[in-house]
């Protein structure tokens, strides 16, 4: 197991955003968390990456407890996060954004190699390398945000709502790139409101409701589950 989360509880002040959430992420798979707005999906990711401190529970990554580590240590251990809403640095160029993503990496050669591999996933970024990130289209910004997360060379990549606000044709493109990333050996946690897209590419899935895991299992089985179909797929 690459990542083992046990009874993770996170509060915002007095509000409990995550309530004893346990999630297993086997190496080399795509695990998805689906759920409505406010179910705690983003909180889950930020608790793992150390941006928010969980109030209790354990997070074990590659055999090491990380729930008390600062976020920069967590990144250098190999967990990378692509936050919600295509957050890029609009005033930096595409290349600068990517290089900043490799902040925990030392060595110019390594950074250059990573840059090339990101460009091979997203050729459009290579064409736009000197443009300011703020001038890219929504889909391109999302690609840049994912590319930046890949720059640290993660073992585990966490994507928060990558499909948000993108045209269906771009979502399809992203799906194939996420699959490609997995095939190259990076484990992926995918947080999505677009449950249909997420369940199609994930191996296992967890359904979150108001901070609790209410259902989990193989993604292909959840795709057939009546409750999931009714509540999240609208079928």
């Amino acid at each position: 197991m690459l990542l083992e989360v046990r009874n993770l509880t996170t509060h915002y002040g007095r509000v409990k955003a995550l309530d004893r959430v346990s999630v297993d992420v086997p190496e080399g798979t795509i695990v998805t968390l689906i759920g409505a707005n406010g179910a705690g999906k983003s909180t889950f990711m930020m608790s793992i990456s150390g941006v928010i401190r969980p109030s209790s529970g354990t997070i074990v990554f590659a055999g090491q407890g990380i729930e008390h580590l600062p976020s920069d240590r967590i990144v250098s251990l190999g967990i990378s996060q692509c936050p919600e809403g295509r957050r890029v640095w609009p005033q930096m160029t595409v290349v600068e954004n990517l290089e900043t993503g490799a902040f925990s990496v030392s060595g110019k050669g390594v950074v250059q190699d990573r840059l090339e591999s990101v460009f091979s996933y997203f050729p459009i970024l290579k064409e736009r390398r000197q443009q300011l990130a703020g001038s890219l289209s929504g889909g391109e910004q999302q690609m840049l945000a994912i590319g930046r997360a890949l720059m640290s060379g993660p073992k585990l990549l966490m994507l928060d709502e990558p499909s948000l606000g993108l045209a269906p044709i771009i979502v399809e493109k992203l799906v194939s790139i996420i699959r490609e990333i997995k095939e190259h050996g990076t484990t992926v946690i995918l947080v999505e409101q677009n449950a249909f897209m997420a369940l199609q590419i994930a191996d296992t899935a967890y359904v979150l409701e108001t901070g609790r895991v209410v259902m989990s299992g193989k993604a292909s089985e959840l795709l057939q589950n009546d409750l999931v179909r009714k509540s999240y797929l609208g079928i």
Partner: protein
Amino acid sequence: MKVQARIFIILISLVALLFVPRLFSMDYYMHMFVMSEIYAVLALSLALIVGFSGQVSMGHAAFYGIGAYVSALLSVNFGLSFWVTIWIAGFAAGLVSFMIGVLVLRLRGHFLAITTAFFGILVGLVFNNWIGVTNGPMGVAGIPRPAPLNLPGFTVAIQTRAHYYYLGLAFAVMVAFLVYRLVNSRIGNALIAIRENEELARSIGINAMAYKVLAFSIGGGLAGMAGSFYAHYILFISPVTFTVAESINMLVMIIFGGMSTLFGPILGAVFLTVLPEFLRMAGSLRLVIYGVALVVFIIWMPLGVWGSLKSFWLGRRQASLSEAGESQEHS
């Protein structure tokens, strides 16, 4: 603009600056220029904190003052030379700003601004009331001039305003170069990433607190060195020079010039040191005109004078870049 062209322009301007004392022989003008140099260092050091790291500090004059007092007291009481005390002053101010930074930089926005302003007031109270050491409101007098500078081949005594002008020019150029190297390094990228979006910066593995404290300490240390230069130039210091109003004055300079650029703070420092003097001919309307001018600039050029010019120029370059990108796509 090509890098070579840029270096060429900078060199030409530096050579031109070397001739300023020949053109303006009046002491009054030379004094304004020396003060401009001191303010250029202060504005650059503040721009590192506010412009590049996005941490609004309203207590910068405190570090300026700490440097001035440390340097002045060491030379007056222990006879240490300016060439030694300027480093001690910088180190002392840097150390204090490190300690304050660790405490206050977890705050953001208005809270940080207000807390640093109170720190400035606190330091002012110490200058005023620790009479045994600082001589209180009477200030410290009799600060010696810098000892003659032994260059290979000849010796220069620092006596006239022109001497201070050249010394200050060297100081300002070195600080500008240091800040330039800093903001164009990995550290600079981290600072800008923190300024634009701190959560995002942390989520990709930047230790935001460490970099904010680093910028704050370096900025404070440079302000302390500027304070030392000031003390050994004016030869008298008192608490009234290092108030919160002075901190705000520095903020106005970098806002006016453009705080996320390198040239902007220098421009702001020179312009806002010289302008009020030239407005003296307007008599009692002086401060009114000054105020109106500032408001107009902030409304019409929110990025500062230099920042606005730069973004206009960058915008044109970006437009031509994306046109080029699109035509590539079509072909």
